[in-house]
């Protein structure tokens, strides 16, 4: 398996990628809860409160969050780390899909 095969987009890779992005997005909406002074809550906030998006988004983006922890908290840094996060999500999606295919192949 070479690098091109690894990153070549496919249906499942992109689906997972979008899923990760969506979880992160909803996690951000839920993070509003930690800001006691922020009012009113975002429109989506009540609609998605039934699921733990914030916690899951923390887990799936852990490596980037760790990097971010050490950096100054400015808008520029947040923007740059978001680009990193997007790249990481795509790599993660590729990794999961390829691993699943390999396990499936080995077991059959």
């Amino acid at each position, binding site marked *: 398996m070479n690098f091109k095969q690894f990153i070549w987009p496919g249906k499942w890779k992109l689906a997972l990628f979008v899923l990760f992005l969506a979880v992160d*997005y909803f996690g951000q909406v839920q993070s509003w809860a930690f800001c006691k002074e922020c009012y009113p809550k975002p429109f989506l906030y009540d609609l998605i409160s039934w699921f733990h998006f914030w916690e899951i988004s923390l887990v799936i983006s852990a490596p980037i*969050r760790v990097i971010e922890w050490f950096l100054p908290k400015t808008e520029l840094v947040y923007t740059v780390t978001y680009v990193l996060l997007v790249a990481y999500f795509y790599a993660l999606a590729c990794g999961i899909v390829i691993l699943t295919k390999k396990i499936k192949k080995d077991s059959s």
Partner: protein
Amino acid sequence: MQEKVRLVFERIKVFLTPNKLNLIAFFLLIFLFGVNYHSRSVLAYLAFLPLFLALSISTALIKSLFNTFFKFDDFSIILSLVYFYIVACFIAFSFEKTTRKFGTKKVLVPTIFVFLALLIISGRLTGWFLVFTQPSIGNLSLSAFFVYILTAIVLVFVWVIIESSQLPTFKKNISAVLLFLFLLAAFHPALRGNIIPETLNEEEHDMALLAIDDADSQLDIQGDWILQYEVVSIKTPVEHITPFQGGCSVEVKMQTRTIFGKPFYKIIVYFNSKESLEFCDLEIPNECDFDPHCKP
């Protein structure tokens, strides 16, 4: 030689002739980037980068020529429109090419996923989810947002009717172009009229920065709060402006969004008149000035 030139022109003509795919891609581009034009989105910057390059190179030559007829802003809108359309043609062309190679079914699903990904990324960077509670964010009011969506639905509906009619293809294409230009007018913030702030020129901007110079020390992170001043404009009609008692005649608008869980406040100072720039000596408002629920 003449034949070669004719062939190139023929290819360009085919490439640029509006069709369903071109127009859909055009619409999606406007939707993704047009709405966020003033939201400082990275994607918007990337999308506009070639435009800015083209502008800076051609400005010196063309601006003087066009200034007689248009304001520069008008020119940049026209140019962005053309730029969007060419990008849309490229997208449609490559989509068609890959479709021919791999089949529609195989290409369509990944394309939808890519669009969804771009939509989420764009939304995350610009704080779209806050649009519904902070009507002034991204210069997009709640009522305006629904008006745009409604306009888009109506226009797409009219387009479907035209497409299924018995009109000749050329007339169909022309009406589709007109419809999408109308849609652009509805979506593009720069064409939405009074919600676009009047931009300060360099001298006015310097004066404004001087006016808030004392505030500089407090522009950084204050505990968990990130405050940032951005002098945007001389006052223009904007919804939800919070009156602010400063040393001069100003009004303050606040944009709020979260970035990785931190509330990010962008405070925009609107000067009531160009003259007041000279006399302003602003005091720093804190988040409690804007939030009735805040207990300092």
